[in-house]
């Protein structure tokens, strides 16, 4: 008697566990599309395709702001002085150590291309302002140098470099 009832018990338990497990799998699978729909849709992804920017109209010492994937990108034609300033500072003294050479493309050393979003809380820094001749963020006072590196204030990191490449001497492709 005892054996039968315990065998009965196991079989029933198995059925309950199996049903519960299948229900859990189903619920998890049903949640997937509900979450996935929040990701960028196909039109947003298509609109985020690489863009080309003509550098010819940007004179030395000037900068332009272009938008790629909704983000402002600063393209700055730096003066010799600005480049020298950026390269003169000892890297080890920086909050986020990085050489200027690592932040520009070789052979195009005067061109600085950075994403103009403060690494503190996402405000847009103003170009040609601040104590380091680079960028100054008006929100919380972060100061970036002529290489877009953080020098002073609450921001933890340098301005990020977007993926880009020189198509020709006067044209870059961002993305």
């Amino acid at each position, binding site marked *: 008697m005892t054996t039968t009832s315990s065998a009965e018990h196991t079989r029933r338990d198995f059925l*309950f566990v*199996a*049903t519960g497990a299948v229900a859990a799998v*189903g619920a998890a699978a049903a949640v997937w599309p509900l979450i996935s729909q929040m*990701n960028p849709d*196909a039109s947003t992804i*298509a*609109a985020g395709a690489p863009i080309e920017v003509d550098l010819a*109209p940007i004179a030395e010492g000037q900068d332009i702001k272009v938008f790629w994937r909704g983000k402002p990108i600063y393209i700055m034609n730096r003066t010799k002085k600005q480049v020298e300033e950026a390269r003169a500072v000892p890297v080890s003294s920086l909050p986020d150590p990085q050489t200027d050479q690592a932040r520009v493309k070789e052979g195009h050393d005067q061109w600085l291309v950075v994403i103009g979003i403060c690494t503190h809380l996402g405000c847009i820094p103003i170009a040609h302002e601040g104590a380091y001749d680079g960028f100054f963020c008006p929100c919380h006072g972060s100061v970036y140098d002529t290489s877009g590196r953080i020098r002073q204030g609450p921001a933890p990191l340098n301005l990020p470099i977007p993926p880009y490449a020189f198509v020709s001497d006067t044209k870059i492709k961002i993305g």
Partner: protein
Amino acid sequence: MSGPSTYQPTNPALQWIEKRLPIIGLVHSSFVAYPTPRNLNYWWTFGGILSFMLGVQIVTGVILAMHYTPHVDMAFNSVESIVRDVNYGWLLRYLHSNGASMFFIAVYIHMLRGLYYGSYKAPREILWILGVIIYLLMMATGFMGYVLPWGQMSFWGATVITNLFSAIPYVGESIVTLLWGGYSVGNPTLNRFFSLHYLLPFVIAGVVVLHVWALHVAGQNNPAGVEPKTEKDTVPFTPYATIKDGFGMVCFMIFYAWFVFYIPNYLGDPDNYIPANPGVTPAHIVPEWYYLPFYAILRSIPSKLGGVIAMFSAIIVLAFLPWLDTAKTKSSKYRPLAKQFFWMFVVVAVLLGWLGGKPAEGIYIIAGRVLTFCYFAYFLIVLPILSRIETPRAVPNSIADDVLAKYGKKVASAIVALVLAGGLMAGGTQSAKAADEHGGPTPPSLSWSFAGPFGKFDRGALQRGYKVYKEVCSTCHSMSLIHFRNLADVGGPGFSAAQALAVASEIKVQDGPNDAGDMFERPGRLADPFPKPFPNENAARAANGGAYPPDLSLMAKARNYDRGFPQFVFDFFTQFQEKGPNYIDALLQGYVDPAPKDFALPPGAYYNKYFPGHAIKMPKPISDDQVTYDDGTPQKVENYAKDVSTFLMWTAEPHLEARKRIGLQVMVFLIIFAFLMYFTKKKVWANAH
């Protein structure tokens, strides 16, 4: 929910919470310990199914609202971009649009169950009235939701329904203006309908809480209609009712998934795939199937105010049911006459639904009046009289006695009746939609590679169809919803991204302004839509003898023809969804020149066998050898027609392959799950018998 709980959790943390907020006890007493009559049949699972459907509608609706734009210029395209571009957007949209129909199917079964078993009688009058309120709220919500896609039926449905209020004497016109927020249905109307469509489901949820509260105070009715007397008459809600409701719910989900994945547009109206046009009313305005019986009542009264009063009375009369039917015996099982009249009433309601989908002419008007009389007579004459003259059979002494007695044959016949009822209603809608195409032959049903549960597009046909579209159709017809990137989409014509880009860069797109403020031309990109042949509608009309060549993006879902009874019932089972491509294919080959002698062809028109009214403004668009096929397919009009129809089916339903593939997975899963639930339910209930 029936008073203070005596439940005490054993876990100290839960005890701490319970002392301060007795929520666990509330849940325990309402959904665990709550005694349910042990003789409930599967008709009682529809309460749970309805709660589930409300949840599905709220979740999918909140998500759709994240992507939808309530503006007259953007609403239609935003719905299409949900379906085309948002991840699983097609699934969410079809779940929501078919979910509304499922909600109503379940609520009608739920209401008829209440009617049959006398669930509105003392002490459940308030429970029943709350149910009628929920039903009214559902109708309002469903109506406003149908307006949001801003297609032709949305617009004209909104116009017709809001105009109902103009029947009110003296203040009617002012009320309608107030509802519209303008002098016609327009952007303010769409905005407020969106707002209210978002609000009302939560109001419904609130009334559902009251409904469940009232239910748990009065206790559930049951098929025997005798109240539980001893503990033997009831079983605890969990696990018994929970598992039974769960099994019912999974079976209902299979039915639901059949619609969503295989026939998502079966219950919809093709006209709603045509953007709203305030200048042209569709030939037949038909509401969604769930309003059809009331629509028939509205039309059968030959007075504007009278019709509106009759329509609203048809719903309000339900609230008075507890006082119209005063018979002591609750369940119709023991009322031989009431049972027969109940089924007659079901037939009357179904026939009214069928009439609601028919044009209001000839015999249909007379039939509508007779059936409207029958509808009201059931409530106002039959039930009051029956309560006085009928001799009921003896009811069982207790629920336990009822369980011992055998019953069940009724269930099968009821299912058959309900399936027929649903079929008839759906058919009514379908025939009404196509009724304007009288006189023309039915387009032949071709065999399409994308038909059926395993359907896939024929890549070769899609590529050839694209070529035909590009070289022939696109000279007059736009295709604004398709972008070059779509050519490389999975489940599409199978272009590589590089090929699609090459196609895109062949065209010039106006862009700008540049730094100097000038517009300039650049090569097309993948993100660009297909170019338009004309800058605007007026230019298109001027170049085409006054006719506006319609946009072709959704053409394969926006055209329809009558399949007739009983074909549309079979269409549900065979998943027939190819009316659009059949029609397009037939139309392209349906030119007859010269036109039949007895047909007066207007100037500038051409005779086409399959075009509604036969006089089409489009000249025969294609002839043999007009487009060069590189793959050896014969360059015949019939191949051109079939390929371009295939291509248009893809542009109308770009995720068709994914839909059917995921549908198969969901179906297999649900069927396995249903079996498991069935055996689990049997195991659980084995103890109770």
